[in-house]
Structures are given as C-alpha cells and as structure tokens.
C-alpha cells in the first residue's frame, strides 16, 4: 500500500508539472501577437503593453515557467488585470460559493441517483430499468446551460417558489438560501442522475450476481437485509470514486450553470475573466480547478485502492 501511495503521489506531481507547462506554453504558442488579438485592433500601445505583461509574454519562457510554479506553490496569482483585487482573493471567495452550491447539489444528487441505480438493478430488465438506463444515456453530456434554461422556463418563471437567481440576499436565512440554490441544484441533478445511476446499477448487478449475495439469499435473508448488509457495501465503492473524480468539474466547470442563475462561483469568475480579457484571473481560476480536480482524482484513487486490493495491484504495475 505504501508503495502504491508513493507511486500515485509521484504521478500527481508529474501531472501537475505538465499542467503548469501547458498553461505557460499556450499564450507563447499562439500565432501572431495574442495581446493584439485580445486587446483589439484599435488598442493604444500602452494598453497593448499592459495586455502583453498580463499574459506574461514580456518575459522569457523560462522565467514565465518559474513564475507560474512559484505562484502556484505560494497560491498567489498576483493582481487581476482589470481590477485591483488580488486574484487569489477572487478565486477563494468564488470557490467558497461554488462549494456551497455543489455540496447542496450533492445532497440531492447522491441519494436520488444511487437509489435510482439500485432500483434499476433490482428491477433488472423490466421497463423501470430500461427507462432509468435509457433516460440516463440520453441526458448525459447535455450541456448544463441547456438544462438550466429549460428548468428556468419550466419551473423558475411559472412558480414563485423557485428563485431564478441563485445568489440569495445577504440576510437570507438557511432555508431561503437553499431555495435560491434549488434550481441550479436540480440542473446538476438532471445532468448527473443518469451517469451516477448507471454506474451504481452496474456495480449493484455485479454484486448481486456474486457468490456471497447468492449465499445470503440462500440463507433465507430478506431482500432488504441482503441489500443492506451484503450488496451495497460492495457496490457503492465505484459510485463514490466516480463522484470524487467529478468534483473538480462540478466546482469549476459548470460555467454555463453559474451564468444562467447569475451565481458568483468559480465558473462565473472564469467567464468574466474571458469576457474582460483578464488573463491572470483566467489562469488563476483554471489552475485552481485543475489542482482541485487532481487532488479529487488522487483521493478517489486512494479510496478505491484501500477498498479493493486488486485495483492497487493493477495500478502499481502501471496499467
């Protein structure tokens, strides 16, 4: 296990190094003068110089790389280009908002999609199973902004209960805050239900078909007991792992969602950075998401390895 952890940690460091290299290289690889493109054709020489500086292009690539590495280690991405705020402060406050949204969404998403998956497995090959699986297939990979506008029009406008702006007023109580977050959370539910339900279904079916489940049924235990004590323990591991790897995306990739519901999270921060050509904020936001994503993947890999020795073996042999 120690060997595996060390190997896996080293792998994460290599990944981080490649990510930093990519982020540094992209503006340098852009053909022509990216600063001119971003600033616009009619920009003054001063503005052009400022944009070039904000991209880091006035320094050598080696120096840029060094800066990015030290910025990341100190978690200090300098000042924003379009405001005087520190990039790190902007990232922190929006990350906190995104975390709130995602935590609440997970409270809805996890029980419902896991229950859906278990139900589909229990009712295998019936119409219930088919509906859950096919709807799940169909709606996975729907852009969240598409689901967002649909829910906004179907629920947000006709029913006053649903709040159309996710950000609650400053003095809102806990329940009102949740009501404001309900529509975005339902959007996350729609996007992820099928995906998580399918994985739960597959692993539940594997567990149900295994010898220990058969033995438990033969012993005369009730279906409920077999599920509770034998099947779920084994079948929920992959689900937890998948949710772990998706956390990074949920926290920073849901740009469309945060825009539609006007929510000041990490996604909207990244969008605003694009909109106002603020490369330092864009880079800080994307790096933060990449690091969260990396840590989440690492954590879920370790959890899988801890739960399942076979996975440990295949990973440490370099599959």
């Amino acid at each position: 296990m120690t060997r595996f952890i060390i190997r896996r940690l080293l792998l994460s460091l290599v990944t981080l190094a490649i990510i930093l290299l990519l982020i540094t290289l992209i503006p340098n690889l852009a053909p022509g003068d990216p600063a001119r493109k971003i600033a616009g054709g009619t920009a003054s020489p001063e503005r052009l110089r400022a944009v070039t500086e904000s991209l880091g292009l006035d320094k050598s690539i080696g120096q840029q790389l060094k800066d990015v590495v030290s910025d990341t280690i100190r978690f200090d991405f300098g000042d924003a280009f379009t405001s005087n705020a520190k990039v790190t402060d902007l990232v922190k406050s929006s990350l906190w908002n995104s975390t709130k949204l995602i935590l609440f969404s997970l409270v809805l998403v996890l029980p419902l999609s896991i229950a859906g998956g278990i139900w589909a497995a229990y009712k295998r090959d019936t119409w219930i199973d088919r509906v859950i699986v096919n709807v799940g297939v169909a709606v996975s990979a729907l852009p969240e902004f598409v689901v967002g506008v649909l829910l906004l029009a179907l629920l947000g406008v006709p029913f006053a209960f649903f709040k159309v702006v996710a950000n609650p007023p400053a003095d809102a109580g806990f329940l009102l805050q949740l009501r404001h977050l309900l529509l975005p959370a339902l959007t996350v539910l729609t996007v992820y239900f099928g995906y998580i339900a399918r994985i739960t279904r597959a692993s539940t079916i594997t567990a149900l078909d295994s010898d220990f489940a058969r033995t438990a049924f033969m012993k005369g235990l009730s279906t409920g007991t077999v599920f509770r004590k034998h099947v779920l323990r084994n079948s929920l591991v992959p689900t937890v792992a998948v949710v772990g790897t998706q956390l990074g995306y949920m926290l920073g990739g849901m740009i469309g969602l945060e825009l539609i519901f006007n929510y000041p999270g990490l996604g909207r921060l990244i969008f605003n950075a694009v909109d106002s050509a603020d490369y330092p904020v864009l880079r800080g936001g994307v790096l933060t998401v990449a690091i969260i994503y990396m840590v989440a993947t690492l954590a879920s890999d370790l959890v899988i390895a801890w739960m399942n020795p076979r996975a440990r073996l295949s990973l440490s042999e370099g599959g």
Partner: protein
Amino acid sequence: MTITPGRSPLDDAAVDDPAHTIDLGSDADAQTSTLAQVRREQRQVLLRSPAFIIGVAILAFWTLSAIWPELLTEWGPKDTVRNAAGDSLIRTSPNGDAWFGTDRLGRDVYSRVVFGARPILIAAPLATVISAFFGTLIGLFSGYYRGWIDEIISRVLEAILSIPSILLAIVIVFTFGPTYPVIIGTIAFLFVPPLARTVRAATLAESQLDYVTAARMRGESSLFIIAREIFPNVIGVVTVEITVRLGYAIFAIATLAFLGLGGGNATDADWGKDVAANYNNIIADVWWPTIFPALAIGSLVIGVNLIADAVDRANSS
C-alpha cells in the same frame, strides 16, 4: 481461412478483416461462422433497436437542415418576419406566421434554429474525425511498442485528461482567438487523449493474443501487424469512442459559443450564441428565443448519445 484462437465472440465484434474467421462456439468445426454473418447479425440488432432509430432520425433531421436549410424554412436567419399585412413582427410568441415566435429583432426563431444546425454540424464532426485519426495513431503505436515512449505519452495524456477539457478549451480559444479553425483544432487536440487512451488499452490487450504472436513469427513487419492485424480488431472500440466523442464535441462547441467564444459573426445563426443572447429574457416570460435553440442542442446531443449507446450494445451483443 484461418481461425483466430482464444478469442471470445465479444472481442470479435470489431473484426473487419475478411481474412479472419471467428470462433463463435465451443465446437469450432461445426459452428465456425463467417465474419459477414456476425456483422449482419450485429447490424440487425442495431436496426431493431428503437434507441438507434430515434437517434438516427434526430441526426438525419439536423443534417438535412445543415445541408439544405432553405428546404425547411422560407425566411433567412437574418430576415425580419412580416405577416400578411406587411407588419414586421418583433418578439411575438409562437404563432401561425412564425412557428417558434420571433426574437427582439423580429427574426424568425424557427429559421434561426434551422440555419443554426450548419456551423455545429460542420465543426463537431470535423473536430471528432481529426482527433480520431491522431488518437488512433498514437494509441496503436503507444500500445504496441510500449516502453519509455509509451510511458511519456501516457503521462502527458493523463495530465491533459486531468483538467476539465472545457476549461482548457476556454484558455486556448481565448488566447488563440475565437475562429472556427481554432475551435475545431482545440476540440480535436483535447479529444486526442481520451481516444488514444481507449485505443491504447485495446491495442495492449490485442497485442498479447496469439494471432499477433503468430504474425510476428511469420516475420511480418511491426507496421504490417499494427495496420493489418491489430487495427481491424480495435475498429469497434474506435467507432463507439468516436460517437461518444461526437456528443462531447457538440457539448463543447455549443458551450464555447454560449460563452462568447464561438466562431463567425455574433449575428450568425448559432444555437449557443442565440441562447446566450436571449436567456436574460426568460424571466420576462419571453422564453421562445432561448428555449428552441436550447432544445435543438439538447436533441442533437441526445440523438448522438442514443446512437453511441446502441452501437456499443450491438458491438457487444
């Protein structure tokens, strides 16, 4: 006629090489079935699957509107709709003159949805095909040769995979400028890693099988083995992965357009751009300029997903 030993019918889903015959049952002599038969049966499974039929119907409709939009609508995407009396219709809800209503500039939402199929149905498949080409190439060589080059390639692929691709796409398109070549190239680049990884895993599994060893014993060149022996056997995996990627390419390109990083002019008919331009009016109950292009994106993604899933099931049936 040769029999490839030690392979389950499941693996043979992908066989495309008429030189191979496959073993479908335990009794190889009596039940040897030809490749053509297997493929015919798979095709039948596919054509009988309702999900596949619905998916193809959706895709066919949007392909028709991409190729020949004038066939489906009398208005151009930038025309102002006028009713029989000659009045221009601004922001009217769906009615007889404009089935999907008109937007704030009096343009016909239905026409814009029909014309909006073209940009995404050119960009998404093109990006997918480019990434499929490079992904398959890298996956095949990486999985066949292994060694330290494979190790480096795998680490780089993993690193790219470990950033949500939409974020990397935003950074690249932002710095390179939002034009169609940049968008297509970016999506193609970002989809190489998942494709290469899948093909590499399949190649790794195939190259341990006896038929590859046999080919090596015959003294065939590595290039021949990769191209003529292994490649035909991973085509099934590639097909499924391409269809899945096409769905994600549509997702990514629509999202980029929604975020203001689409190619072409701001006024062009484009589903993502139209949603972005109009979604603020939903709360004023002007839902139609947003919802119809959003449904168009949704239906296209769902259609492609249904096809991908049906192909996957047919391959493993």
